[in-house]
């Protein structure tokens, strides 16, 4: 039940943010579309298994802020490589990925891909490892020191 309320709230807020027209008829149509989506999601049985709204904590904005900083630094690195292509030294590496939840693992994999210079090439549940393709030696070092993994583990929060 908690999932349904969370989903309906998020959808309603999204609708209110996108609409911009707040007349009674339009609002009723909006409420109907929210109800339709919640009903379809219930039929698909995807809710609650992976879409845990409990992971949406205050830690998320902190992590995103840090990630945006990382993205800017990584971009400067790759931009230098574009200007001087002799710098590039592609390699495929494996790094440990020990996260508590599957959402954490996917967050880690996506964060690696989101920072230019590294791309997740293989991600399997339960292997505790991520295979990544790196463009530069600096990117390899950045991935090996495990800073991002620590942040993702912090994002997952303490054991419940």
């Amino acid at each position, binding site marked *: 039940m908690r999932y349904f309320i969370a989903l309906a709230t998020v959808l309603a807020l999204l609708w209110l943010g996108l609409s911009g027209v707040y007349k009674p008829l339009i609002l009723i149509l909006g409420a109907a579309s929210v109800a339709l989506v919640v009903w379809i999601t219930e039929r698909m049985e995807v809710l609650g298994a992976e879409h845990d709204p409990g992971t949406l904590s205050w830690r998320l904005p902190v992590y995103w802020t840090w990630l945006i900083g990382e993205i800017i630094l990584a971009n400067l690195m790759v931009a230098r490589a*574009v200007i001087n292509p002799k710098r590039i030294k592609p390699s495929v590496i494996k790094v440990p990925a020990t996260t508590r939840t599957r959402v954490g693992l996917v967050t880690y994999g996506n964060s690696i891909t989101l920072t230019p210079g590294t*791309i997740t*090439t293989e*991600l399997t549940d339960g292997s505790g490892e991520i295979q990544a393709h790196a463009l530069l030696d600096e990117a390899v070092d950045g991935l090996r020191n495990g800073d991002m993994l620590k942040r993702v583990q912090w994002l997952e929060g303490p054991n419940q």
Partner: protein
Amino acid sequence: MIDIVIHVLSAGLLLTGAAFALVGGVGLVRFPDLYTRLHAGGITDTIAPLLIIAGLILQAGVSILTIKLLLILLFLLFTTPTASHATVRAAIAAGIKPQGSEDPTKERASSNT
């Protein structure tokens, strides 16, 4: 006064974003193989939207337009890594080997000594 500051800041963000987009485009043309080109595509997919949409938000002010611009940024930042990862998976499944994939551990050992 505050108007001028916002305009200058917005212009700076927009032009820096445009410059990064150009660098990413040049990288797409210059880089030697598929996997390195993905990194160049990564520039145009991450920092260019970040900076350009930040610049546009400063111009739009507080309105429904800002919410929509933020949503566009959110969608782009969530979907582009997934699309890149899917491309890599498909390319590996098709048998395209990345450069430097021979033995990563050996390379690390030689660079440490």
